[in-house]
């Protein structure tokens, strides 16, 4: 049987090889989203990291009992077009297939992304291997229960404010 951790690592390595080209294209053509903002991914202790910059833009936040992951995936038509895996207590792999309703030759102008995309991301805290899922307005929301409850401030960016003068 395939070890899910090894499988996820293998996928991550393959994506890393594809890596920048796919990521660039995604940012430019698909979401026109900003790259991660400076300081936005910093946290206390375990900080979220994005080892492979590819796939849908994400928002992640932590509450006392849950970790919430939102992925930008407009135009999904079937739950089978999304797969979510845990490669460890804090490693989430999101894969999706954004359907293309028309044949190539019919497009006059094409900017939206369609096809396969994947994203591996590290969560700020450990979660259980089950998630409540909701999809609406093109946003996939995953709610993972935390292994151990906390304050909800884990993973929050802490800004360093330099002292004035001197």
């Amino acid at each position, binding site marked *: 049987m395939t070890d899910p951790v090894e499988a996820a690592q293998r996928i991550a390595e393959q994506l890393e090889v594809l890596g920048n080209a796919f990521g660039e294209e995604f940012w430019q053509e698909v979401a026109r989203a900003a790259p991660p903002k400076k300081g936005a991914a910093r946290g206390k202790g375990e900080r*979220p990291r994005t080892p492979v910059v590819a796939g849908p833009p994400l928002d992640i936040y932590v509450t006392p009992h849950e970790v919430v992951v939102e992925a930008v995936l407009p*135009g999904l038509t079937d739950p089978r077009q999304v797969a979510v895996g845990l490669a460890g207590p804090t490693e989430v792999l999101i894969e999706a297939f954004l359907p293309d309703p028309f044949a190539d030759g019919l497009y006059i102008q094409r900017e939206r992304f369609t096809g396969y995309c994947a994203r591996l991301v590290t969560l700020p805290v450990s979660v259980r291997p089950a998630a409540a899922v909701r999809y609406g307005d093109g946003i996939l929301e995953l709610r993972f229960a935390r292994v151990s409850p906390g304050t909800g401030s884990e993973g929050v960016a802490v800004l360093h404010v330099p002292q004035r003068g001197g």
Partner: protein
Amino acid sequence: MTRAHHETPAERAGPPVDLVRRGERLLLLAALPGVKPSDLRVSIVGDRQVLLEGTVGYRHPLPRENLSLNERTYGPFSRTVDLPLPVDPGGVAVSFQDGLLSVDMRLRAEAVRLTWHPKEVWGGDRPR
């Protein structure tokens, strides 16, 4: 205003748009994830432009600076799409589902019957 602080060139560019020709219709598809139908406005300007305006509302229970990771974009957007073909503003159907906007427009052009003369088209002698 906080928009200027967060806004990037990518956000100013507006949503990505596809244009598809289907028979006598022109279909515009725009990815607008996170936009509520009530926050979107679609206008046909003349017969050669579509204006998309709206707002991606921030609805998380935490302030934006407290997110562990923030890659989604929020705030107002606007994009004017130049159409390559003239459309009839009266023949437009709009639908918006799962973050995907579809604007189905009837083309405003009457087909001209072409009479082909094989010798002139495919032969070497062309009129000057």
